[in-house]
């Protein structure tokens, strides 16, 4: 009994310390008012005044402000759009890779897996910087295309939404590949044979058997990409242009340029609430998958 209690207590303590407490702090700041002080908001909790007066000073002003300035909801919508499109593009790129890996000879699979994970060995930031070098007007890509004669003028890719998509797909591809690969690897090859035996062409066997049976992997991978991309900040600020509107970037600017911590916190709280929906859906999917395996 004691043992079980401790086993369960550890993850909960972890969750409390690393998620709930910081979240409570952010929530508290979002309900405070901007002030020229350090830290830049009031009220500060004061033991002398007691908790009652402290709570009375909190209000929803910042959240109301978010609805009044259309920058915020435009940024949310734009993030949503970018996250959806890039999830879809990552799926398009990731599925064939996962499929190829699952069909590869057994002895190749560890190597292929390694190649997918390899980028994680260097800093994410450095890798995104590297893309700046590739995509800029004098970058490798343009030089290569000019050299082959496909184009005569350098393409402007860096600092546009295209660069953001490229960066996002590149960064999040492994998160898409791995769950799909694990679903496809488990797929019993005789099911495809059975489908063909019953009159399916290769292609229709793929649509009728392979895709439905990797559905859980597709869903898991899509959430693993969609959720972090929605709040992504590094990629749009390094690769995106001035017209790339993403909520992560807005958040960063509120926080560090405007030093308006309360509004920035309110943005963060809303973002988190928006993310709860896909996270819950993701959990459901994982649970269903586990049940199906039993």
């Amino acid at each position, binding site marked *: 009994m004691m043992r079980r209690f401790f086993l369960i207590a550890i993850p909960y303590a972890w969750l409390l310390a690393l998620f709930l407490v910081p979240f409570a702090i952010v929530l508290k700041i979002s309900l405070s008012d901007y002030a020229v002080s350090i830290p830049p908001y009031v009220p500060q909790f004061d033991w002398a005044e007691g908790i009652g007066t402290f709570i009375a000073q909190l209000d929803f002003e910042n959240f109301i402000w978010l609805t009044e300035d259309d920058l915020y909801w435009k940024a949310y919508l734009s993030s949503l759009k970018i996250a959806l499109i890039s999830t879809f593009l990552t799926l398009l790129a990731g599925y064939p890779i996962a499929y190829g890996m699952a069909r590869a000879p057994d002895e190749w699979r560890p190597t292929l897996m390694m190649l997918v994970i390899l980028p994680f060995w260097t800093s994410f930031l450095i890798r995104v910087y590297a893309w700046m070098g590739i995509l800029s007007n004098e970058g490798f890509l343009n030089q290569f295309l000019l050299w082959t004669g496909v184009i005569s003028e350098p393409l402007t890719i860096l600092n546009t939404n295209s660069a953001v998509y490229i960066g996002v797909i590149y960064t999040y591809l492994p998160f898409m590949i791995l769950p799909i690969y694990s679903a496809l690897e488990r797929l*019993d090859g*005789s*099911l495809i*044979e*059975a*489908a*063909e*035996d*019953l*009159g*399916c*062409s290769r292609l*229709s066997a793929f649509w*009728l*058997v392979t895709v*439905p*049976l990797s*559905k859980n992997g597709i869903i898991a991978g899509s959430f693993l990409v969609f959720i972090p991309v929605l709040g992504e900040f590094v990629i749009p600020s390094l690769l995106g242009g001035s017209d790339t509107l993403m909520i992560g970037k807005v958040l960063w600017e509120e926080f560090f340029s405007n030093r308006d911590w309360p509004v920035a916190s309110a943005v963060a709280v809303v973002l988190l609430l928006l993310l709860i929906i896909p996270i819950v859906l993701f959990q459901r999917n994982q649970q269903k998958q586990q049940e*199906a395996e039993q």
Partner: protein
Amino acid sequence: MTASVFEPWNDPEAKPLIHFQNVTKRFGEFTAIDNLTIDIYEREFYALLGPSGCGKTTLMRMLAGFETPTEGKIFLAGQDIAPVPPNKRAVNMMFQSYALFPHLSIWENIAFGLKREGMAKADIQQRVEEMLRLTRLEKFARRKPHQISGGQRQRVALARSLAKAPKLLLLDEPLGALDKKLRQDTQFELMDIQEKTGTTFVIVTHDQEEAMTVASRVAVMDHGKIIQVATPDRIYETPNSVYVADFIGDVNLIEGTARPTGSDTYAMSWHEGLPPLKVQSPNSLSDGQKCHLAIRPEKVAINAEKPADADNAVQGRILDIAYLGNISTYHVELPTGAVIKAQTANTRRIARRAFTWEDTVWLSWTATAGVLLAE
């Protein structure tokens, strides 16, 4: 006109539906099918029998189109099927592993092949219902494969392969997981389907009784080779080798040397001091050739006294009695140390059995009861 017997393999005019021509299949170094040549005729119920790993499934997979022969050719209705992909072959296979689609209900699994054909909705409905009834799965139509028992899954696999009513049906151990009663019923259903539709069946089974019941011919395989192909009764009565005799049913094997005494009669000397055994056997043997007499236990009679008119009689002592309900098998030890099995029908109650342990008895059989098999 007499009712014509179904024996296309004896008709030199008959064209086989399937013809394997010196087919060899290798997996790397390993030879799974070894230079195999067989003919299977239309409307046949062709049973493949053999130990695990002898290549039965591989043979079927080549017919269905999932493996290509390393050497040799396979003809279906006179056409080389090498270039025809599995989905274009008028062949359906029931997989040994069932290969049911886990994301589809039982109903949808059975309808899968019919939908690919573009059959009308109402016809599909009707056909699936029919298959469900046949395999007694009506109650489970809406369930997913993981929600039914192993035997039920096997029946779904069977129903799914039967649904399209193909020209050629390959059944890889179709009834192994069913209880005896259901298995027998399904065997008769299969035979009935075959009567009605004229489908050609190739069936893998580990159950000899099943092969005997349903098959028009039985092929006994070993190590990728066909050892013998014959009708069930001929496989049983006149096996062509010790391997087949031993593999099919229970058999007594007595070692000795043959001496021809007529065109197809032999005297087999088997032990010094004992008279040679008289055998009439179709397999020709030379004088002094080492051989085995193969004789089925039910063809050996057991008596208290020496029978006067028997071709062969030997004395022995009862070592063991196996009571199997309808029959009893007596294990009789001969003075030579060999143990011979004799079977009798239990027409009386067990308490009134004529013999018991340690009794001295006479075993006897006729000259035509066994066959001589070369080493």
